[in-house]
């Protein structure tokens, strides 16, 4: 085995395992560079197990191992009760467990996970589902425990996602399996009914009195039974729900048409009056099911229903007696004593018993500031401990803590998906009564004129107006729009979102993480290189000041030790100065720091802080504005069409910068999560009822929920996002206006399709009221109208998608 050596600083290399920059101390092992010992260990392990083609399949396939997991983190998995939810199957010999692993991203991942048995022979088999980022692992009991399996895959960089909400309520199957089954049955019946109806289509009259015709009719009848009673079941269910709620939806006329079609056809077949409409029934059911399938686009790896439990750890370290014990979070109670370590989340409101607490509440408030807490003081849930381990005593349950109370608000209780204001339900409110009226009138008319035709005309109207084309236009248009947007990094929860989006009048933005970039890589230093000593000076000085630029530099240099600063002065508009040990240091404007000749950069997106030490000019920190690129243009495009507001959890330090974009009286600062929710509520109560909230974090969760549409901006869609209606990749934020425009166009497409299909219906009614509509006319007219509508809406949504900048070709 080769020895590992350290990489010299300044040589630019990337890690062989994870592809991360090795700057600031990587190491070389086996002549390959690694960024940290974690990555090197994984490499070594794979090398020994003869699995080095992990690296051949893809370049740098690994995930960074810099953030190590704490020893004993998974001890709670030894507890049978809490681990139970992960198990799919278990007997004396083997156990099968399923894990959700967000890190799965390429074929190397599949290779590695499926060959786990080479690393540990106690693992019998592992199977990866790439699309759902899931691994099912079968292992031998007695040779390896569930905890050891989890530790093994976590060690090689595939830490499974284990959090409270996933374990408490096992994911409901989102799959479209039942649609495939129903479509399969419908297609089978449809094909065979068509085949048996062929003599009718060809008008072979010689058969008319032949017993063969009866035989074909009975066969058709039998084949139509599964279509009506199995495949079409959900249309009946949906119509039934609507009737029970005393409302009308599009499924009512559809079901009415289907039932009439079936009864009339059965009558025709058994009374030998004709061939019936069974072929039409089957083809319409098939098309409608395909429409439903198309509408139900789901993203297997995204969840739009997350609440605080997804963010919280599954287990905590509880102290009983003098010993520390890892237990599931759901089992802790008021009065329990727990230990919270560096970067861990406080799970419930508690008082600090001992230790130095520096709590970062950015998770709750959106404000990035660490708050020192004294022993005996209260710490609120959702805060993150920065620093050494602290000991806490719980004063509230997890579900009744300050942060989690937000979820007890009414906004989280009543948000029904059965929107009554969709275009579809609006149209059907007039459509259904109109159809019934026409059929009754024509029935009554023929009763007078020619009573033989009365029943014929009555049923024919109900059959021909079965609004399948009408009902198909929305699913196909909206389903297609969702798909196109999904390819461009905008993931919407369902098709209702598009409808609501088209009506938006007011847009409310969160600041941190939404208008601004969360990543703090926006600082770099230019000039004479600073020694470690000098960097400590800068860090200590800027730590004293609350100026936003100082804060940024201070965060940037957070790893440096902070020294005491004497004779500190802050000069308004110029800079800060102070003595640290024997050094005199100034930070601020160019002339303040004594630099000459170097002009200040007049770029609105960057600010500079110049540094001098002992009167000697050193250089400057260039701080790029965190606002997302293109924000100015986006606001410019939105400004005249929407009311724009900004809600920020931060203090108003950024007010000046934001005023460039949005009127000052529409900027609200120091907003707590509940304030944000209430702000949206007041807006809605005052008639601004179409409010879209765009946020990113848990602190926006209430507002996202209360608003008509809540969109979440996400840097990494593998991360959790709070419950929302749509997730937008950070890079696509500036396309928000195109998104709204596209939604409006989509609604226009649907309206045109409605007009088209109504025209078809009128033509059909014209034939039907005459009482002479033959089954073959229905069999041709109705599928043709449906197919025209489907092609029109699909094509139009592609073309308009392209026009709004969502071209088809791009993949994510």
């Amino acid at each position, binding site marked *: 085995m080769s020895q590992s050596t350290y990489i010299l600083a300044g040589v630019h290399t990337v890690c062989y395992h994870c592809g991360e920059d090795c700057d600031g101390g990587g190491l070389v092992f086996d002549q390959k560079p690694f960024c940290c010992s974690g990555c090197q260990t994984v490499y070594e392990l794979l090398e020994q197990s003869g699995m080095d083609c992990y690296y051949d399949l893809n370049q740098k396939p690994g995930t960074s191992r810099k953030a190590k997991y704490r020893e004993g983190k998974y001890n709670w998995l030894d507890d049978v009760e809490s681990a139970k939810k992960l198990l799919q*199957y278990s007997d004396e010999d083997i156990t099968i467990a399923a894990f959700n692993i967000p890190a799965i991203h390429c074929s190397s991942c599949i290779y590695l996970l499926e060959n786990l048995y080479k690393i540990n022979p106690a693992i019998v088999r592992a199977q990866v589902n790439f699309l759902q980022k899931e691994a099912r692992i079968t292992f031998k009991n007695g040779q390896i425990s569930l905890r050891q399996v989890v530790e093994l895959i976590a060690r090689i960089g595939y830490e499974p996602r284990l959090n409270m909400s996933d374990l408490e309520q096992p994911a409901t199957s989102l799959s479209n399996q039942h649609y*495939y089954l129903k479509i399969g049955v419908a297609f089978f019946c449809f094909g065979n009914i068509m085949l048996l109806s062929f003599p009718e289509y060809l008008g072979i009259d010689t058969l008319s009195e032949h017993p063969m015709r009866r035989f074909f009719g009975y*066969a058709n009848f039998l084949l139509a039974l599964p279509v009506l009673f199995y495949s079409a079941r959900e249309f009946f269910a949906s119509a039934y729900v609507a009737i029970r709620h005393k409302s009308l939806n599009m499924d009512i006329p559809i079901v009415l048409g289907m039932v009439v079609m079936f009864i009339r056809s059965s009558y025709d077949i058994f009374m030998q009056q004709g061939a019936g409409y069974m072929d039409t029934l089957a083809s319409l059911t098939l098309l409608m099911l395909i429409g439903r399938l198309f509408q139900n686009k789901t993203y297997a790896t995204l969840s739009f229903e997350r609440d605080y439990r997804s963010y919280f750890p599954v287990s905590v370290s509880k102290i009983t007696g003098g010993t520390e014990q890892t237990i599931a979070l759901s089992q802790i109670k008021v009065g329990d004593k727990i230990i919270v370590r560096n970067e861990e989340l406080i799970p419930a409101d508690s008082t600090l018993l001992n230790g130095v607490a520096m709590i970062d509440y950015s998770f709750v408030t959106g404000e990035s500031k660490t708050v020192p807490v004294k022993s005996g003081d209260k710490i609120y849930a959702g805060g993150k401990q920065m620093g050494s381990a602290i000991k806490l005593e719980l004063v509230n349950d997890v579900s009744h803590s300050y942060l989690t109370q937000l979820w007890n608000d009414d906004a989280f209780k009543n948000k029904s998906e059965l929107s009554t204001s969709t275009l579809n339900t609006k149209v059907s409110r007039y459509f259904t009564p109109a159809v019934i009226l026409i059929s009754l009138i024509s029935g009554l008319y023929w009763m007078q004129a020619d009573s033989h035709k009365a029943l014929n005309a009555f049923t024919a109207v109900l059959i021909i107006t079965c609004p399948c084309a009408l009902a198909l236009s929305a699913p196909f248009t909206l389903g297609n729009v969702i798909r196109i947007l999904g390819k461009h990094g905008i993931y919407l929860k369902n098709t209702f979102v598009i409808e609501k989006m088209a009506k938006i009048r007011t847009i409310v933005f969160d600041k941190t993480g939404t208008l601004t970039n969360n990543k703090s890589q926006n600082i770099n230093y230019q000039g004479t290189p600073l020694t470690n000593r000098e960097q400590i000076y800068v860090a200590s000085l800027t730590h004293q000041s609350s100026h936003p630029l100082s804060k940024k530099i201070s965060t940037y240099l957070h790893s440096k030790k902070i020294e005491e600063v004497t004779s500190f002065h802050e000069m308004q508009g110029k800079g800060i100065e102070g003595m640290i040990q024997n050094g005199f240091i100034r930070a601020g404007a160019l002339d303040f720091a004594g630099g000459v000749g170097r002009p200040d950069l007049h770029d609105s997106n960057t600010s500079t802080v110049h540094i001098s030490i002992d009167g000697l000019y050193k250089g400057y920190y260039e701080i790029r504005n965190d606002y997302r690129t293109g924000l100015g243009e986006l606001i410019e495009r939105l400004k005249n069409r929407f009311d724009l507001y900004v809600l920020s959890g931060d203090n108003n330090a950024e007010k000046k910068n934001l005023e460039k974009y949005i009127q000052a009286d529409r900027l609200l600062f120091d907003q707590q999560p509940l304030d944000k929710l209430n702000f949206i509520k007041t807006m809605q109560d005052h008639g601004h009822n179409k409010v879209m909230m765009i946020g990113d974090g848990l602190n926006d969760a209430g507002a996202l929920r209360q608003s008509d549409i809540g969109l979440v901006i996400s840097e990494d869609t593998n991360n959790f996002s709070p419950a929302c209606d749509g997730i937008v990749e950070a890079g696509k934020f500036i396309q928000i206006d195109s998104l709204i425009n596209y939604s409006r166009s989509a609604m226009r497409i649907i309206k045109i399709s409605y007009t088209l299909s109504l025209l078809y219906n009128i033509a059909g009614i014209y034939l039907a009221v005459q009482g002479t509509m033959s089954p073959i006319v229905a069999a041709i007219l109705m599928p043709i109208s449906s197919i025209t509508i489907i092609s029109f809406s699909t094509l139009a949504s592609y073309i308009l998608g392209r026009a709004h900048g969502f071209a088809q070709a791009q993949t994510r």
Partner: protein
Amino acid sequence: MMSVLYILIPACLCMSALFLAAFLWSVRSGQYEDDYTPAVRILFDNIEKPNSTNKTKADDSRKV
């Protein structure tokens, strides 16, 4: 002559019903749930080292 259809059509229906049953079975057993991984997995067989113990493919028990 035509009466042969009385046998042929039910026979046809039965045969196609078999295919329908095969389709329904394949959906229910989850074969359509992941259409990506199997396509990748097949490529790994070529790079498999000879001493593999990959014999336990039979235990696909979906029940809990």
